[in-house]
């Protein structure tokens, strides 16, 4: 048994009324702009990395609909526990693009003081929690934050992002189980992009889908077309609303595809075929959404290209603002380990110098 895949955008560009979130023209254009911005950021960052101007990058091309569609469903007070591939969501949290780009450079323009690799950002004001590399550790944390919100009487929801590979971890199992037992306002959003680095999801688990794993924890799992921003928005909006109203957790599996490499260190030609990529490229969420907006008469003529160009320029401006900013000071290395610096770090600080170790 597999769950039905929910899709709103039909192949012909029209929309299934049953799943139509009925967004305004402005909303649709906003979504579209953010998807283009995310794609533009990706394309520029990949070049920056190749040129050695940033050290590393995790692209999300192909997953824009899942990122932007779900992120757009969030409300002001909601909390976000992202993975390293979910900077798209940050773009919807009033998170200035410079903050993202500065983190890629890890210099003084990085609010995280160059502590982490690119793509591991956070922003307290936006309630976007610090990303870590260990896969899926954010899931039980998101349950705890949701529990805390409930205890404090805050009617908010918490969304936690992870991948198909993350569903195999003990953190996923514990997070899902605790959420079911405590009925926390948690939405588990799995971007099933078909791969965990080189491992296809068919070798990740023998279950028919990620979504159906929710049954093992006593709550609902939903399988949605992850390349369809409107379907993703619709199911995420409903799940978040249910969570805020005390309806408990939901697992959403967004079925999508990682069009690029796992990261700038990965060579996907080693484990997947050109045909497969070609197949999925036909379903490129940006192409599909453009189609729909054209059909709906919301963008006409060369408008889509104009918007894409605007997005590229916005990214370029951010890069200009952040690149070449001064490096982080050596002493910052021993700060923020504790609230107050203990004696041993005060002593170790003396060992730092402008030169190498």
């Amino acid at each position, binding site marked *: 048994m597999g769950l039905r895949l929910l899709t709103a955008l039909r192949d012909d560009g029209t929309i299934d009324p049953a799943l139509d979130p009925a967004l305004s023209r402005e909303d649709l254009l906003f979504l579209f702009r953010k998807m283009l911005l995310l794609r533009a950021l990706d394309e520029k960052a990949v070049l920056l990395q190749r040129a050695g101007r940033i050290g590393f990058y995790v692209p999300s091309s192909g997953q824009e609909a899942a990122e932007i569609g779900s992120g757009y469903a969030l409300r002001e007070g909601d*909390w976000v*526990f992202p993975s390293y591939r979910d900077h798209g969501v940050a773009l919807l949290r009033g998170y200035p693009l410079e903050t993202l780009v500065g983190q890629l450079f890890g210099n003084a323009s990085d*609010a*995280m*003081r160059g*502590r*982490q690799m690119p793509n*591991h950002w*956070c*922003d*307290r004001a936006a309630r976007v*929690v*610090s990303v*870590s590399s*260990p896969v899926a*550790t954010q*899931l*039980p*944390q*998101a*349950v*705890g*934050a*949701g*529990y*805390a*919100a409930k*205890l*404090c009487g805050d009617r908010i929801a918490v969304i936690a992002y992870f991948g198909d590979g993350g569903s195999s971890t*003990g*953190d996923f*199992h*514990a*997070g899902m*189980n*605790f959420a079911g*037992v*405590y009925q926390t306002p948690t939405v588990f959003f799995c971007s099933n992009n078909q791969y965990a680095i080189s491992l296809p999801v068919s070798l990740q688990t023998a279950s028919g889908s990620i979504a159906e794993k929710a049954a093992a924890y006593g709550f609902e799992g939903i399988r949605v077309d992850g390349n369809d921003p409107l379907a993703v928005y619709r199911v995420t909006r409903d799940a978040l609303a249910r969570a805020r109203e005390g309806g408990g957790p939901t697992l959403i599996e967004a079925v999508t595809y990682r069009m690029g490499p796992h990261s700038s260190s990965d060579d996907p030609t080693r484990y997947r075929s050109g045909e497969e990529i070609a197949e999925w490229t036909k379903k490129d969420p940006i192409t599909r959404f453009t189609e729909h907006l054209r059909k709906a008469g919301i963008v006409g003529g060369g408008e889509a290209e104009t918007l894409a160009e605007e997005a590229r320029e916005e990214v370029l401006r951010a890069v200009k603002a952040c690149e070449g900013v001064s490096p982080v000071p050596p002493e910052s290395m021993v700060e*923020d*380990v*504790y*609230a107050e610096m*203990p*004696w*041993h770090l005060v002593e170790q600080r003396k060992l730092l110098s402008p030169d190498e170790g």
Partner: protein
Amino acid sequence: MATMTLVQAIRDALSVEMERNPRVVLLGEDIGRNGGVFRVTEGLWERFGPERVLDTPLAEVGIVGTAIGMALYGLRPVAEIQFADFIYPAFDQIVSELAKFRYRSAGQFPAPVVIRAPSGGGIKGGLYHSQSPEAYFVHTAGLTVVMPSTPADGKGLLVSAMRSPDPVIFLEPKALYRTAKGEVPEGEYDVPLGKARTVREGTDVSIITYGAMVPVGEGAAAEAEKEGVSVEITDLRTLWPLDVEAVDRSVQKTGRAVVLHEAPRTCGLGAEVATLVQERSFLHLKAPVARVTGFDTPFPYSLERKYMPGVRRTLDAVRTAVNF
């Protein structure tokens, strides 16, 4: 003042702080209706309700992961790991997440979680109900590691831990849970983290120890006294960041140091203390810093009393130092 056992003192710390601060919540296995397998949380579930005293499913990774999320949101969670031996399924959440949240977020997301765990031998618990894992956490930057040896410190240090801006691993010497009795100030009371306690003054040898080994050190000191050897005992209380001034002061006075703990020897806290002593007090040393510790074996069931350091081995080390 009231006379309490260590268990009562720790319970008192929890209830006083839960009264004072509605953001304090407890979570762990069997801590609610059952009051904890050592009864530390007895009565708190009835008093503060299941929303603030959570019985959790059997998953330490979930307990610590959930506690971290609670702390990020603004609560002050106190997680209980039923036995320190069962903390390892949560090791990734502790080492990769809890210890690093403040650093990697440049201070935006501190995670002030307290993790309580009964630690050490003495109840014939064998391999998995006897371990002393403090060295794993002392080696992990970002954590504060605490172990009390008296009821008063049990209360005062735990209250400080619950108010600390940083995550604290609070290890409770289960051998002393009911055997350690003493006067404990009622109501508001705290003992600062990072400060050692001089258990007794002495001039010939410094014993540096903590937790359930403090009484063992006292036993050895009493024996040594009969032989005319004056032993000073320092109870570290906070294992890391430790009170290095107290250690320096004592060792530079006596010129001889014995580090005493029940955890395994190799790469244990004794190695760190011995290294700090020889780094900082080299010219004062009249003898090598000695280690009296548990063995580098799993913790045995039948031979527990031979595994754990006793007065015999401690006294031998004191004598060796004096006669070096």
